């Protein structure tokens, strides 16, 4: 019989957090190492790094002298992958067998860089193709453009992979220095989900070679410029896309910030979710189709909402949202029954994710950096009160922290 999930954790002497979550009845073991370092972390006390450097490290850490780490994982029956987000980089494996050998390979992956002039040069071509691929995706381009309005000249508005130009500024030396500064055990965590012995996992990790940095460079949080006035551009697309962005400047961190993210999600679900009157109305006015969606992001010192979709009328799309996203509108529609439904929906989503070792590992690893225990999320959600949601909305739905961006079909 399936029981509620439980975890075992230990913070090692070197500062690394290790967690294990058994999943009864599941065949796989999913392992993940995460660094609290992503594409926006390009400013240091010493100066500015080329954009895309976090993503480049992610690609090139797989290269070791005479072998590629993915070969080693394959040899031990695991498939492996990695990804870079705005604020995190993660390395993962999924296996049926040899979980401890694969854990050792994961540790080798994140502990032993082998950046050379030659292998860095050959990786540029591959990453450049990745950048070109994304440049053909209007949704991706639109996200970068709206972030450019929300956070003008900020690294968050750059492609996570950088640009063809910034790739030329990345070399094996700045890769190594950036790696050393950020892949410290006290800036990372490790999660294994599946049938593994916690003590054995801890022992393997304790006997591995994490490097330490005596005086790590301090993270320089980016100072934000005023929000842009909005903009439009033409692209070779068949249908216009529109994005409306809201920036919420906050000094919240940790648990409070994660809770705030849930509250912001509840506000947006009430105002423009599929069960909202506004969604019906925009649909009736032919302003949106079923690509319409919103995304709430609260990471490090960034907190913003992007509402986007295909539209026949970008101007009206923007106007409608500007006129209807208000505290007053929220107060009118957030009844007790509505609030209860929205809360239930959030609890359900949490349980859906628990069918997936991958989702558990990724969320648990990330939430650690916000001092939140993933397994306690259900109680965090349950503790949110209607008044909390209204209070937050009153503070940020003011209309002076919004902007927009439109991608219009090229008329040629």
């Amino acid at each position, binding site marked *: *019989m*399936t029981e509620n999930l439980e975890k075992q954790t230990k913070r090692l002497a070197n500062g690394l957090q290790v967690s294990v979550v058994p999943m*009864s*009845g*599941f*065949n*796989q073991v999913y392992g993940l190492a995460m660094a609290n370092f992503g594409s926006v972390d390009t400013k240091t006390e010493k100066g500015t790094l080329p954009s895309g450097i976090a993503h480049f490290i992610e690609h090139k850490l797989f290269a070791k002298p005479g072998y*590629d780490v*993915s070969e080693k994982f*394959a*040899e031990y*029956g*695991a*498939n*492996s992958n990695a990804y870079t987000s705005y604020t995190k980089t993660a390395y993962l494996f*999924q296996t*049926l067998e040899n979980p401890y050998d694969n854990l050792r390979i994961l540790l080798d992956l994140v502990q032993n860089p082998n950046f050379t002039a030659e292998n860095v040069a*050959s990786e*540029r*071509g*591959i*990453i450049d*193709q*990745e950048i*070109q*691929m994304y*440049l*053909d*995706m209007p949704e991706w381009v639109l996200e970068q453009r709206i972030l450019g309005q929300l956070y003008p000249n900020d690294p968050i508005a750059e492609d996570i992979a950088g640009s063809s130009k910034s790739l030329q500024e990345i070399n094996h030396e700045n890769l190594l220095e950036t790696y050393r500064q950020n892949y410290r055990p006290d800036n990372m965590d490790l999660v294994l989900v599946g049938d593994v012995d916690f003590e054995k996992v801890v022992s393997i990790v304790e006997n591995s070679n994490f490097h330490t940095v005596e005086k790590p460079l301090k993270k320089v949080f980016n100072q934000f410029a005023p929000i842009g006035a909005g903009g439009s551009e033409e692209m*070779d*697309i*068949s*249908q216009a896309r529109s994005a409306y962005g809201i920036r919420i400047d906050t000094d919240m961190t940790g648990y409070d910030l994660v809770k705030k993210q849930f509250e912001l999600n509840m506000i947006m679900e009430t105002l423009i979710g*599929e*069960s*909202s*009157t506004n*969604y*019906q109305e925009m*649909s*009736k006015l*032919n302003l949106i*189709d*079923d*690509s319409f969606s919103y995304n709430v992001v609260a990471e490090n010192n960034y907190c913003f909402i992007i509402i986007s979709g*295909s539209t026949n009328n970008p101007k009206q799309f923007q106007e409608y949202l500007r006129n209807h996203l208000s505290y007053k509108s929220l107060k009118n529609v957030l009844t007790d029954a509505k609030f209860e*439904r*929205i809360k*239930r*929906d*959030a*609890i*359900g989503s949490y*349980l*859906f994710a*628990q*069918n*997936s070792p991958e989702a558990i590992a990724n969320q648990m690893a990330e939430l650690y950096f916000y001092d939140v225990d993933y397994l306690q999320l259900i109680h965090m959600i*349950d503790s949110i009160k209607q008044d909390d949601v209204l209070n937050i909305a009153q503070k940020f739905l003011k209309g002076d922290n919004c902007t927009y961006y439109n991608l219009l079909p*090229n008329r040629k």
Partner: protein
Amino acid sequence: MRKTLAKNIFLNINPIKKFRTIKIQMDFLRPLAKEETTSRRLLANVMSNSTEDYPSFQAINDREMELYGSEINVFTRNLLNFNDLAFSVEFADPKFLIDGQTQIKDNLDLLGEIIFKPNLEKGQFNQTAYETEKRNLMSNLVSIQDNQDLVSSLGLAKLIYQNNPDRQMPIFGNIDQLNELTNEKLMETYRDVIKNDTVVINVVGNLDEDEFLQQLLASDFYTQLNDRHNALKIEFDKFDKLIEKPAVQIEHKHLNQSRIALAYATEGVSKDFNRMAPQIMNLILGGDDQSQLFQQVREKNSLAYSVSSTYQPLSHLVTIQAGLDADSVDKALNLIQQQIEFIRDGKFTDSQIQHAQKVMLTRRKIATDSIQYYIMRSIWQTVYPKTLLTDQQFEAELQSLDRKHIASVADHMHAIAQYQLIGD
């Protein structure tokens, strides 16, 4: 528990306890017919928009949220030579909810509402629901042109199935057919689906089989579906003409990256050869990051970020896709051909075979960690059982692989179609 509720109406209940959700899925199947493809897709969208008791999109969404975020999904897809119109509801297992209340009956009722109690007025679908969903579908069809990977795979499919118009039509339909559809015609499609399609009902999750069966028998599902329905006949495509004269199409578009998509028929491999040989050949060719294509085209020559191959066991087709610079296309095509020859000439190592065997086994077992695996397996069990292998048969086939068989698959790969989307 497997049960036949009426002729060509099948029920399978799989009481697996490891998941935190329960899923009920109902698949309505019939042979693909190009005239019906758009209509069935629009029907799926209109039926998930609203129902008699939840007469707006808002009302139905409110109900899903009330049930702790139940997920209703209605869609169409290709399955063999069939059009599968599938309805499903997935919901949190009450055991893990804060109030622990039962949810099975409520969710079964909601799914029943969607299928059997559409939102009608004067014998037709509610006009708002119909128009909204027609507009949505039109918008989706127009947007396809902005998804270059999809454009490229549709371009290839159009070439592969040029002699089978029913397969050539994309499963989501096309703009011309959508323009011609009326509310009245859609209603005819609905009646036809409910009356004639083969139906496969699957339930997976932590529940009591007998209790669920009683609930089902007392519900609309049984009262509306106790009549005989049409049987299914499996048919396969032949690619003889394309083997003789492969189809090639090159299109140009203003893009940053070009795409190539290639298809090969694997005709003439001895029937006595190992059944896993084509899959193993595909894995060595382009099935993962250890494959020849990934290593040679991406890692060694830095030509592409994405390059891979796929084998479709039922049509016996191998397809290859890559995204790359326009001026690298010829070089990449040469390299791809070299990798096929590499396998054909038996140059792959034993460790490449062992790796591929391991990947096959791992993927199969990891798949059992998802609810969808059990539903798909049950559908195959119902419509095409002879392709299913037990775990023992699967492992025995993998163990008895001969490298000659793998090389033979590559030797019998016949290029049948090539689609290039050139960015300039």
